[in-house]
């Protein structure tokens, strides 16, 4: 079966380091840290009071006038995705109905969207008055909830929190009528969504796809879940800039945050025909499972991640030596980082000690379903710029981590870059990109 080549022709990212890809890349190169004390709510009583929060933005600016009524149906996850999608489309030179209805240059039926989305938590403050109206003797009473409580909740409440609504809103704004999927595999979501979108283009079912992920984790429910699972650092609240320490001997846990990353994937011939600038080619995809009785961690030898990396390299038909950059998942959770280091070392063999490994979460925080997408955007920037910024907060490698973590910024020609991710619960993913010819 002939299979189309898939290239990246546009980038969009909104992250704790800024509202655009340019901001993110400049921040990463400068070694800036997007992590700070939580301001979205008062984190008093939380073991971790830190998060990576996106700077202030005005959502109205990113939504065409005709669609502004829909803003009230957008949870923060949706807003972030809408902003990143807008940037990616503009960057790619594609003109949709949402960008300029007079000069549309896409066929809506031949554009797909495939996004990784988180398990969106509802706004507790919004829900609270309804819950408070449903108490009997201080306890929640479903009989009151079904009548008095229910009346106090906005009618379209549910629609703000369905994970497919990220793709829906973007699809409606930009008139995207091709296949649409929403991958809900936690921190592996974005890589899996990008993989699926690339496969949809490769098999000829669409010419163009918006792919990536978005998640807003700075929400008390999501944060407490990470605290309860002991995935957060609780010892670095006074030092946000050095709190998240992937692969470092002093790693105490991860710091969570919010972001969206979206790339425009395009059939190579389609991109060439319209004279689009090509930033990278998606050449290798790999997926597997880790299987661990402790669901909340990667299995100790990282085997499920190793398989995904090996499959992605085989798919790309490259050898480990060909890789110029690896962006690992690297969360700052010591057990998981060690397992990931073992997986990368096993998959890359002797090349592992030489290949530049650059974890980003020390600066961008762990943005869940967005993380794989913003890492991929960072990898494309590194390839385009011929530069790998220095890793932050990995001063002394943890025992068992024999990776070549980038200590000093490097000017380098990267032919192939690998990004990988995994989730508690099992799914693993790896994507190999090739620099433009």
């Amino acid at each position: 079966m002939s299979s189309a080549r898939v290239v990246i022709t546009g980038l969009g990212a909104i992250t704790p380091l800024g509202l655009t890809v340019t901001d993110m890349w400049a921040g990463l190169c400068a070694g800036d840290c997007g992590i700070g004390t939580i301001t979205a709510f008062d984190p008093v009583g939380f073991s971790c009071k830190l998060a990576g929060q996106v700077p202030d933005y005005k959502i109205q600016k990113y939504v065409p006038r005709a669609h502004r009524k829909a803003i009230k149906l957008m949870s923060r996850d949706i807003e972030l995705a809408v902003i990143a999608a807008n940037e990616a489309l503009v960057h790619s030179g594609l003109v949709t109905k949402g960008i300029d209805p007079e000069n549309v240059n896409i066929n809506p039926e031949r554009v797909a969207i495939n996004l990784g989305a988180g398990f969106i938590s509802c706004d507790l403050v919004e829900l609270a008055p309804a819950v408070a109206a449903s108490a009997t003797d201080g306890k929640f009473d479903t009989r009151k909830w079904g009548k008095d409580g229910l009346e106090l909740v906005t009618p379209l409440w549910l629609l703000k929190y369905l994970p497919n609504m990220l793709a829906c809103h973007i699809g409606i704004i930009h008139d995207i009528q091709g296949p649409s999927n929403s991958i809900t595999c936690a921190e592996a979501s974005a890589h899996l969504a990008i993989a699926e979108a690339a496969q949809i283009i490769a098999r000829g079912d669409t010419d163009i796809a918006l792919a990536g992920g978005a998640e807003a984790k700075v929400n008390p429910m999501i944060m407490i879940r990470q605290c309860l699972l002991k995935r957060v650092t609780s010892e670095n609240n006074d030092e946000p800039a050095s709190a998240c320490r992937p692969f470092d001997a002093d790693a105490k846990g991860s710091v969570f945050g919010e972001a969206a990353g979206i790339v425009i994937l395009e059939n190579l011939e389609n991109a060439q025909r319209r004279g689009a600038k090509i930033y990278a080619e998606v050449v290798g995809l790999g997926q597997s499972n880790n299987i661990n009785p402790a669901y909340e961690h990667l299995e100790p030898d990282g085997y499920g991640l190793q398989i995904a990396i090996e499959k992605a390299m085989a798919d790309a038909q490259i050898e480990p030596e060909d890789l110029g950059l690896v962006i690992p998942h690297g969360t700052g959770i010591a057990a998981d980082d060690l397992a990931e280091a073992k997986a990368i070392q096993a998959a890359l063999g002797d090349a592992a000690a030489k290949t530049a490994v650059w974890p980003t979460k020390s600066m961008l925080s762990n943005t869940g379903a967005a993380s794989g997408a913003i890492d991929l955007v960072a990898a494309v920037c590194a390839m385009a710029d011929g530069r790998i910024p220095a890793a932050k907060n990995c001063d002394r490698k943890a025992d068992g981590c024999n990776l070549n973590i980038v200590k000093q910024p490097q000017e380098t020609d990267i032919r192939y870059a690998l990004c990988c991710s995994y989730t508690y619960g099992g799914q693993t993913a790896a994507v190999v990109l090739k620099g433009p010819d």
Partner: protein
Amino acid sequence: MTERVVITGMGIVCPLGHDVETLWQAILAGKSGVAKTTIFDASTFPTVFDAEVKDYDFTKYTKNPQLHEHGSRGSEFVIGAAVQACRQAWIDVETAEPTDRIDRNRLGIYLGAGEGSVDNDAFFAAILEGWDADKNEMDWGRWAKVAFGRMDAMRELEQEPNMRAAHIARLTGARGPTRSCLTACAASTQAIGEAMMMIRRGDADVIIAGGVHSMIHPLGLMGFNRLTALSTRNDSPQTASRPFSATRDGFILGEGAAILIIESLSSAKKRGVEILAEVIGYGSSSDAFRVTDMHEQGRGAIQAITAALADAGISYKNVDYINAHGTSTMENDSIETKAIKAVFKAEAKNTPVSSVKSMFGHLIGAAGAAELITCVLAIRDNIVPPTMNLIDRDPELDLDYVPNEPRKMPVNVAMNESFGFGGQNNVVIIKRFS
């Protein structure tokens, strides 16, 4: 040469039964799985009934129930459905040394999986404690104290939608491509369609695919009631799901899990496993219209049906039976009918269309997979399942909806339609294997 893709196993846990044969007999008898809500006291809600899975015990499907003890309702359902499907397809479960001749690196999972149910006691107690009604704000310190004290880490983890697949991986040792999607009511049809594509592409030999969801909880029922999506026929729950009827007034919230084993033909032949049907077409589209409504002319539905037929390389004239999304809402049933007519033209009236949601309600993320199982059985037995409760026909809806009685007729090709809230449309076509 692209791999042909076949179905070699099926399993279900749904309101009409906890195995495929029980479900099928119930459907052929026109039974209803709908009744008064028992999971919590819903007596004051606008809708007081639903379609629940009852008297189900997942522990009989596993030697190690303790490995799954924190599982949400959905995880428990999917364990049963997956084990049943694996048994039928001769896939070994819970063994370190499988002899089923499937390379674990080529055994994948693709679910349309819902989130786990909220830990209601802790969730609401924390809000009640934290909310300062006088100041109209949350005291997060008070909220956090209750939340830290009462929420359980593993129960919280189980709310993540990707955790359903984790249980299946643990049962089967699957190390192949694994994804989980959640495109509302279209999710499991999408999962099966994309699973087929993965096998065609050569990324896996066998994929455990399907769906699982339970939204029967105080937040879910509230959410759907606020959307006025549910039937409020509280005086007659068993006739409330009446797709294509003039008096239809909404869908019935159901729950369950449905799993199909999707396998390359060469793997199925090599292993000598029985082939239940062939998956021949998949089409996917989006409405790009409104988050609240389907496109008035069914534009996205038409595109998905057309794409699935093209992918299958067949004409609409070859389709013997359409298993409709048929939710029993005013909007869906009317637009779905329009879409079928637009694609099937003069053949539309000669093609039987039925909705099994009339019997087991709307399983949301699991709906498409459960319904695809009924399509496989329709082909196996040459019987089209009925649309029950079709007593007062909507004059605008004039297709052959197979009212109230199953129909014995040759069925070789069946099409399954699923449309999600927000406009994702997915269609899968299966065929008798020969």
